[in-house]
C-alpha cells in the first residue's frame, strides 16, 4: 500500500493545474517560471506563488509555428502548455536564459502570452570567474526590484530570510529522503521519490513541507519493502521525462542513487545561508550547485561530478537521458561517454523527448543494458 502522502503528491506531480486553479480562485497571484535556477524565494517573499512550468506530453499544436521542430521539446512543450492547454492561469512569468533556445523562448513568450509581469532572468553562462558572481548579484537585485514594483511592496530582508528558511527546510527533507532511499533500496520507488521533487516545484512550500513532515517519520520507521533492487544507477541529463521512465526503472529493479537533473538534485542541492545579506545568500547558493551542460565551468565538471556520484553511491552504471535537440548535451556526449567508459563505468544513452516515447522499446533497451552489467542478470 502506498503512503497517502505519496499518492497525493504523485497526483499533483502528474497534473497540478486543478490545484493551481484553486489557488487562483482564492486570489493568489501565480508567477510561472521555466527551468532552471530561478530563485523562487524572491517570488515567495514578494507574496506571490511561484510555480515551475515543466512542459506537457500532450500534442504540440501552436508552438510548432513559433519554434522550429529542431528546438528542444522541453521548450516547445512548455510554450505549448501555456499557449494552448493551461491558459489564463498565470499572472506573470520569469524566464531564465541559459542558451539560444531559452533566449528566443523568452522573446516569443513575452510577445505571445499576455501577463501583467514578465522578466527574463539572465543567469551567467560562465561560472568559472569572479565576474559571474557580481553579475548574478546585479541581476537578482534587478529581479527583486521588478517584483517589488509589480506588487507595489517591499521585499524586506526579514521576509526574504523567512522564505529562505522555508525553502531550505524543503530541500533538506528531500535530501534526507534521497539519502534514506540510497541506504534502503526499495524504501520508496524511484517514481514516487522524483515525484516528491516535482510536486515541490508545483506546490506552495508551506504545504509541501507539511506533507513531507508527515511522510518523513513514516519512512524512517518503515522497513524495506522487500522488493528486489539488483542495480544502482546514476541518472544524468536535464529532466526525467516522460514520468513512465521512472516506472520502468522501478519495474526493472533499478535503484536511482544519484542524478544531476534539473528536476532532481539540481532543485534540492545546496541551501542558502540564513545569515547576512539574503540576496547575496541566494546568489551564493547558485554557485554551490552542481554542473549543468549549458553553463560553462572550469575543467570538465560534468564528468567529474558523474564519476563522483557513481563512486560515492556505489552505482553500477549511468543512464544518460539525452533530451532530443537539447543541443549542449550533444556537444558533451561523445567525449563524456568515452571518458566514462575509459574509467570502466558502464553508461547507456537513452534518447528522450516530450510527447512521444516508445515505452516498450525503452524498457527493452534499459533492460538489455541492465542485464549486461555485472550483477544485472536475473
Amino acid at each position, binding site marked *: 500500500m502506498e503512503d497517502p502522502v505519496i499518492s497525493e503528491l504523485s497526483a499533483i506531480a502528474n497534473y497540478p493545474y486543478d490545484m493551481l486553479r484553486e489557488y487562483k480562485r482564492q486570489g493568489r497571484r501565480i508567477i510561472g517560471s521555466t527551468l532552471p535556477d530561478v530563485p523562487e524565494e524572491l517570488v515567495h517573499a514578494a507574496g506571490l506563488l511561484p510555480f515551475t512550468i515543466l512542459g506537457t506530453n500532450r500534442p504540440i499544436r501552436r508552438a510548432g509555428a513559433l519554434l522550429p521542430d529542431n528546438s528542444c521539446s522541453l521548450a516547445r512543450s512548455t510554450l505549448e502548455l501555456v499557449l494552448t492547454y493551461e491558459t489564463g492561469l498565470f499572472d506573470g512569468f520569469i524566464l531564465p536564459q541559459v542558451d*539560444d533556445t531559452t*533566449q528566443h523562448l523568452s522573446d516569443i513568450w513575452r510577445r505571445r502570452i499576455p501577463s501583467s509581469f514578465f522578466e527574463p532572468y539572465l543567469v551567467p*553562462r560562465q561560472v568559472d570567474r569572479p565576474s559571474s558572481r557580481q*553579475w548574478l548579484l*546585479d541581476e537578482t537585485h*534587478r529581479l527583486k526590484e521588478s517584483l517589488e514594483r509589480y506588487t507595489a511592496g517591499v521585499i524586506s530582508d526579514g521576509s526574504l530570510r523567512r522564505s529562505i528558511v522555508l525553502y531550505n527546510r524543503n530541500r533538506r527533507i528531500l535530501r534526507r529522503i534521497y539519502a534514506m532511499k540510497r541506504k534502503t533500496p526499495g524504501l520508496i520507488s524511484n517514481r514516487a521519490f522524483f515525484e516528491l521533487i516535482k510536486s515541490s516545484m508545483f506546490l506552495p512550500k508551506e504545504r509541501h513541507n507539511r506533507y513531507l513532515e508527515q511522510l518523513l517519520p513514516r519512512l524512517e520507521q518503515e522497513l524495506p519493502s522487500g522488493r528486489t533492487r539488483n542495480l544502482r544507477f546514476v541518472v544524468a541529463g536535464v529532466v526525467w521525462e516522460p514520468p513512465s521512465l521512472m516506472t520502468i526503472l522501478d519495474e526493472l529493479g533499478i535503484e536511482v542513487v544519484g542524478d544531476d537533473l534539473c528536476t532532481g538534485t539540481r532543485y534540492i542541492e545546496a541551501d542558502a545561508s540564513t545569515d547576512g545579506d539574503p540576496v547575496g545568500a541566494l546568489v551564493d547558493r547558485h554557485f554551490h550547485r552542481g554542473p549543468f551542460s549549458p553553463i560553462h565551468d572550469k575543467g570538465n565538471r560534468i564528468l567529474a561530478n558523474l564519476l563522483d556520484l557513481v563512486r560515492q553511491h556505489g552505482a553500477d552504471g549511468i543512464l544518460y537521458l539525452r533530451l532530443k535537440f537539447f*543541443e*549542449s548535451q550533444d556537444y*558533451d556526449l*561523445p567525449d563524456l561517454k568515452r571518458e566514462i567508459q575509459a574509467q570502466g563505468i558502464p553508461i547507456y544513452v537513452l534518447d528522450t523527448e516530450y510527447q512521444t516515447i516508445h515505452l516498450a522499446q525503452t524498457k527493452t533497451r534499459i533492460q538489455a543494458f541492465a542485464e549486461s552489467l555485472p550483477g544485472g542478470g536475473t
Partner: protein
Amino acid sequence: MTKETGTSKPGAREIMKRLTQDYYGEAARARQEGRRVAYTTAVSPAELFVAHDVIPVYPENHAVMCIMRRMTPTLSAAIEKKGYTTHLCAYARSDLGYRELDESPIGGLPDPDFLLACNAQCFTLTKWFEVLSRRYQAPLFVLDTPQYIRNDKARRNIIRYVEAQIYELIGALEDLTGRRFDFDRLREVLTLSREACRLYKEFLDLARHRPSPISIFDVLIHMAIIVYLRGTPQAVDYYQTLLEEIRTEKVAKGIGVINNERFRLYWENLPVWFKFREHSELLSSYGAVILTSLYVHAWSYDFDPSDPIRSLAENYTGVFSNVELEERAEMALDLFRRYALNGNIMFLNRSCKAVTFGEHELREILTRETGVPALVFESDMGDPRFYSEVQVKTRLQAYFESLERLNI
C-alpha cells in the same frame, strides 16, 4: 605572389588573396616564431589579441572554406561516427570533422594555445569550443554577454559585467604570454578597427544606390577581411581600395550588379554558403538582387578608442543576434528603409539556432511593418543534405510571381 602588370595598383580581389595568404602563413609560422595562437569567434573582441600580439584564428572562417569546397558531408560523416549528430551547426561539424580527417582547403589551422568564445553571436560556439579546449588541452575563456535587453538598469549592469570579463580576459592573455598588456597599443588597434569598420560599413551602404553596384554575394566575399583582420592597417587599406574601385568602376558609371534591377531583396540569416553563386544567378533571371542582411552588418562596429574597454563591451554585446526580437526587427527595418528594399527572403537555417529560432516572430513584424511578403524556406547553411534544389526554385518562382501580382 600576386601578378602585377605594369604600374597599375593591385585590385581589391588581389589584395584580399594576398592578405589571406599572409594571414594564414603567419598563423602557421606562429609556433616556430614563439608567438601564441588563439582560436576565437567571429563576433568577439579580437582587438585584444591583435593588441597583445596573439594571432586570432577563426575556426568559423575555415569551416566556411570547407563548406564552399563542399567538404562538409564527408567531414560531418567522420564525426557522426564518433557520436555527434547531424543537427549540430555545420560550422562545428565541418571543423570537428577536419580535425578528425585532417582534410582542409588551406592545409589546416595551427593548434590553439588559447580559446575565446563570445556568446553574443551564439551559444553553440561555447560548446563547440569546449570540445576543442578538451582536445588541445588549451584554456577556454567564455566571454558571456547576456541578452542585451531593453532595460536601462540591466544594460548598465550587462556592460559592467562584460567590462569586468574583458579585464579578466586581459589577465588571462598576460598569463598566456607572460607580458604586460599595453593599453596604449589597444587604443591604436581600436582606432584602426574603427576605421576599417567605418569603411566596411560604407562598402555595405553602396547598396543604397539604384541600381546597386554590389549584391550580398560581393559582401560575403569581401567581409572575410573585416572578420579576421580588423585592427590592422592592412584591413583599412583594403577597404579603401575596394571602395575606390567600386565607386570608379560601378557607381560613377551607373553600373549595377544586374542591368534589369527590379527586386531589391533583404536576406534574413546566414547565407547558404555552398549555393550562393547559383542563387545569385537564379535571382538575376527574375531581375532580383539580394542586397543585404543583418548578418553582414554584424561587423560594422563603431568603436571609441578613448574608452576602449567600454566600447568593446558595448559593440560586441549589442550585436543583432543578442538583442531582443523587436530591436532586431528595427535593425532590419532600418535596412529596408535605407536601401529601399522591396523583397524579403527568410532562410530558416537548421545549423544556426541562434539566428533562426526567433525568425517566425521576426517575419511577422517585418511583414506587418513593410507590407512586403516574405519567402520562407528551410535548409542548412553548410550541409547540402538539407538542401532541396527543386523546392527552392519553385518557391522563388512563386514568390516573384506574387510580388509581381501585388505590384510591389
